[in-house]
């Protein structure tokens, strides 16, 4: 090696008179010898970091997003499968710590101008326009028209939202699925596929169609039925417990494989809710291993997928709709005296699914944990079991969750979420009793969300 040879010549006692005189020209710009770096194949920490650097450079230098995704998920190792719909106790705290998310209760405050004024039945258009800005400030408040059952279209007021028409659409969808259509008995433990599933599909498709006149983003949207959303990431470090790799320090790998009931994808991104670096709370820190949740490890393909491939122009997400399965119904929790876990189910579903979706959208744009996002990615979700609806809005501020990148990363992801509220009380004899306009209005507001330019 060059270093050894030079040392042999420069043994102490033997002076090597250099031929240079003081004031000699500076040494040539390019180094004479290649840089001294760690080896690639040795079993040392320096070699491992060099290999990691080479991998990062390969991913940075990938020509297309598909190539980047392929390299990112190339190495398969055992990883924790995170299920968004889970019965684990206090799962939402664990999921928040895995994804570095802050949970803010309630819906994000929106500018009064963005809220559509709502026409109360029988009120004149001017009066309703005057009431609406006043009511627009408090999130989740609606003017409940008294006992109006017959739809009365708002007279000539185009910007006013006709709540009666939307209510009748929702009631029609509900009645068709639960009352009017003659169906066979539901399959065992598949009650959700019998009525709430088709009801949700009908409701969303008809509402989206009728609101598409107001929201040009919806008019260019793509509706997916039963799509697949996957995301793979590293967070934290652990020591391998057994096997031929025993004793090595490995990142903790997670994978979410989610199947929302319905999702709406759009070609333009939703606007950010708060600026990129805002700090709205604390991320819970959990000292236990993820397997204590319980979470289990499995090794299979590392998929990152938003619902369609990279070539699709509708590459940003708008709203997802999740249907809770029979296993997680409210009566079961009440029977086992775990009433506080009911909300946990909704929250963990919202956080995990939305994190996976927004992070996959960010990866489709070329960002990853070493190349963090330069703009926040926002998506919305509605989690329901057919009667109770909970609304979530997620802003992804950072993808850098691996052990090295999380050290100097002050950014946190933010999730706004509401508690679950019923849309109606009961369906009897062709009538929907106790319809809750607030929930419908929140759903409509979600669907009308769009970038400011549109």
């Amino acid at each position: 090696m060059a270093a050894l040879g030079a040392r042999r010549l420069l043994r102490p006692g033997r002076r090597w008179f250099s031929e240079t005189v003081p004031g000699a020209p500076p040494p040539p710009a390019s180094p004479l010898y290649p840089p001294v770096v760690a080896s690639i194949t040795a079993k040392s920490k320096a070699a491992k970091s060099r290999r990691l650097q080479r991998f990062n450079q390969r991913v940075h230098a990938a020509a297309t997003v598909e190539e980047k995704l392929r390299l990112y998920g190339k190495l398969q190792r055992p990883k924790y499968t995170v299920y968004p719909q889970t019965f684990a106790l206090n799962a939402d705290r664990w999921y928040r710590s895995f994804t570095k998310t802050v949970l803010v209760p309630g819906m994000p405050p929106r500018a009064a101008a963005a809220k559509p004024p709502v026409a109360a039945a029988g009120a004149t258009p001017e009066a309703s326009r005057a009431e609406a800005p006043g009511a627009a400030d408090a999130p989740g408040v609606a003017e409940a028209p008294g006992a109006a059952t017959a739809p009365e279209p708002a007279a000539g007021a185009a910007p006013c939202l006709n709540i009666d028409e939307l209510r009748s659409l929702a009631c029609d969808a509900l009645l068709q699925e639960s009352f009017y259509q003659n169906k066979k008995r539901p399959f065992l433990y598949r009650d959700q596929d019998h009525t709430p599933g088709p009801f949700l599909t009908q409701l969303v498709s008809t509402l989206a169609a009728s609101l598409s006149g107001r929201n040009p983003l919806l008019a260019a949207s793509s509706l997916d039925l039963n799509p697949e959303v996957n995301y793979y990431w590293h967070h934290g470090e652990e020591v391998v417990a057994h096997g031929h790799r025993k004793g090595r320090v490995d990142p903790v790998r997670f994978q979410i494989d989610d199947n929302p009931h319905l999702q709406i994808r759009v070609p333009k991104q939703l606007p950010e809710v708060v600026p990129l670096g805002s700090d709205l709370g604390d991320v819970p820190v959990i000292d236990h291993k993820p397997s204590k949740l319980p979470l289990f490890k499995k090794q299979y393909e590392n998929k990152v997928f938003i619902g369609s491939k990279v070539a699709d122009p509708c590459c940003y997400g708008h709203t997802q709709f999740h249907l809770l399965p029979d296993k997680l119904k409210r009566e079961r929790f009440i029977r086992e005296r775990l009433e506080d876990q009911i909300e946990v189910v909704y929250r963990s579903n919202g956080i995990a699914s939305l994190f996976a979706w927004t992070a996959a959208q960010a990866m489709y744009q070329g960002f990853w944990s070493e190349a963090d996002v330069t703009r926040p990615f926002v998506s919305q979700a509605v989690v329901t079991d057919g009667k109770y609806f909970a609304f979530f809005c997620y802003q992804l501020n950072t993808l850098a969750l691996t052990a090295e990148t999380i050290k100097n990363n002050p950014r946190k992801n933010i999730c706004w979420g509401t508690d679950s509220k019923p849309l109606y009380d009961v369906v009897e004899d062709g009538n929907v009793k106790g319809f809750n306009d607030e929930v419908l209005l929140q759903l409509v507001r979600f669907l009308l969300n769009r970038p400011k330019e549109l």
Partner: protein
Amino acid sequence: VFPGVRQAQWLTKTKLVEGLPPAVQGIVDNPAHGLQELEERVKHAVSHARLWDTAEVAPRREQYCPLLFENLIHICRLMSGKYPSLSKRMLARNCRIAATWERESILLQVRGLSGILMNSMTPIPPVASKEEILATKEHVLETFYPIAPTIDLQEVNVYKELNDTGQCFRDGYPYSHPHTLFFLESANVRTNRFRPEQLRAKMLMFAFGNALAKAKALHGNDPKVLEQPVVVQSIGTDGQLFQFMVFQLNTTDLVSNDGIKNLVWIDSDQNLYERAQCVPEVKKRVVTKPAGISGFQPDTFKKFLALYLHGTV
């Protein structure tokens, strides 16, 4: 055995007219509906269904056929921003249809899952003029002597004659008029799918069944010539080839072979696109078929949309 449509025509006492009725053709040709701008969106819809939807390389027919249908219906539904009366429609999946009638002393019955049904609050106005209906009196139904017309039909002992689309929906259902039936041939294996001719026959039989049940619900069980003919449309596809049909029930008097006949307009074998290539085909290092959708025909979607808008525009 037979071209199925001819047999179905005899069974339902129907006269066939090639091509779409002038009312629907008028909607297709009318530029005011903005069908040109939708071309780009339809191409995306087709690409999404055939190429982009799955994390695997290529989706299977069981996946892409219903998905293509959902995408096209989504585009059609978004037109209700322009035509608010389109929101008076409701899709019903998995509805069972049952209708019985008599043809020359043979009792026939149509039963089964009739695919996806779209209902509307208002009926479709009749497509054929009074003169055309009267002209069908002259038309002679094709008989298949010596083959009995009930060949290939299953003979069953029926103890209860079931007769309503009310079998599918209860009374008081606001969307009471069947508008369009959709049939998706999405089986992966080719032998499990209907051939185009058989698909058209199936479409005709079910459209007839729905129309007959509606007519009996509106006008009673007596066989007679209908003052207000009942119109039911039908679209069938296997993910690439589309069959369009408009059926008008003029009479419920089906026992005899003469008199006024029912009318059906069929536009068959419309391709939406020629080929959808997921991975480019390369022969000897030269790309022979690039990836993507080739041979896209916007007219097929225009007809789809026209049938969807028919009745409200």
